[in-house]
């Protein structure tokens, strides 16, 4: 357990006045407040540090104790105990020092050790309410899983959460489930649960938002003479007419055959097919002869 320099955290001098500390705390809290930095772990950590520093430095008694023992905080309790005994002896049993804090959450070990949990608020003012810790989880799905809206039950910190996963959710997308994070402190609200979707694509389709892209091999003779082919779409096969003289790399758009549009039921993107004409290999003598004849016809 290391000593924590609360002055450094609040970026103030050891001689800082109460007003300086308040100003520094406000400034940093505005910068790192979790509501202003959603899903930012670093900011959340920093915000807790700032609050802890403020709990100590903004209350005269706490600050005095902190300043008095500083890096020798490990011996603070012994000194406090002997001081209390002395005071009891002198004043006939009156309680002194810190006491009855309890219930502190999200404080550092250093703080807990020195102040025993939540610090004294001095004048008996309202304890601050802090939102509970936000939880983060990652959900791995296949592209096929998110083609349709479906329900899943996740177990987060021992609790089952029934989750509806809307069709068309994006890889890397984060959804927030309010109130499913850690317990709040001082009567504050519960934190939120953030779920990041990691979507793996094991299909032949490439996805760009709602549109899908697919390369389709096209027989040379169909490309030249035209014809009908069957192609795979995400939800089945469709027949396509191929125009005579189709060039390699020709793109065809199949409207509404793409991926579902997120949270827009019944709406789909498009499927873009790119033809890749297959040139026959290992020609027979007869084929070579016929191709040569064709080539002469084209050049004559």
């Amino acid at each position, binding site marked *: 357990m290391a000593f924590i320099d609360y002055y450094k955290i609040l970026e103030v001098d050891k001689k800082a006045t109460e007003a300086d500390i308040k100003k520094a705390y*406000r400034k940093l*809290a*505005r910068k790192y*407040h979790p*509501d*202003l930095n*959603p899903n930012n772990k670093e900011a959340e950590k920093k915000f807790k540090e700032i609050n802890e520093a403020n709990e100590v430095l903004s209350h005269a008694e706490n600050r005095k104790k902190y300043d008095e023992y500083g890096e020798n905080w490990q011996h603070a309790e012994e000194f406090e105990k002997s001081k209390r005994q002395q005071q009891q002896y002198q004043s006939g049993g009156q309680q002194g020092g810190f006491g009855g804090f309890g219930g502190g959450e999200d404080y550092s070990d250093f703080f807990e050790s020195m102040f025993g949990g939540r610090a004294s608020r001095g004048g008996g003012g309202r304890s*601050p309410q802090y*939102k509970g810790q936000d939880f983060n989880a990652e959900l791995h799905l296949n592209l096929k899983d998110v083609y349709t809206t479906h329900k899943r039950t996740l177990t987060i910190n021992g609790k089952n959460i029934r989750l509806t996963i809307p069709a068309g959710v*994006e*890889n*890397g*997308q984060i959804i927030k489930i*309010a109130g499913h994070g850690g317990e709040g402190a001082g009567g504050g*609200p519960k934190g939120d649960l953030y779920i990041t979707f990691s979507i793996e694509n094991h299909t032949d389709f*490439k*996805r*760009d*938002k709602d549109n899908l*892209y697919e390369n389709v091999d096209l027989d040379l003779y169909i490309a030249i003479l035209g014809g009908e082919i069957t192609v795979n779409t995400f939800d089945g096969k469709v027949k396509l007419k191929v125009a005579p003289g189709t060039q390699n790399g020709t793109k065809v758009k199949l409207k509404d055959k793409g991926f579902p549009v997120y949270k827009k039921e019944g709406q789909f993107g498009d499927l873009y097919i790119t033809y890749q004409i297959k040139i026959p290999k290992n020609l027979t003598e007869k084929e070579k002869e016929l191709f040569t004849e064709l080539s002469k016809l084209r050049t004559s």
Partner: protein
Amino acid sequence: MNTENFIPLSTLSIHYKVELTFFDNLNEIGLIEIQTINQTQYVHQDSIYEIEKIIRLHQELDVNIEGIDVVFNLLQKIDALQTELLLVRNRLQLYEN
């Protein structure tokens, strides 16, 4: 009108220890939508999350209502930019793979 999914402002005022005029001001600036049903003012329960956020910003950071409006607009912009960044990253993967 059914009040099943609505919460009276007076309940919120007591629960969050804020004055009723605070909600009126939020309504005026367009941050929340107050509905009057049978002469009682309500907000829809779906807006509670946003209202709690507003109250936290107001009480913990001393941000006034106009400031909260600015913050919300900027957060929306950040959210839109993050979504765009995500889509661009996914599109980039199409060319990287």
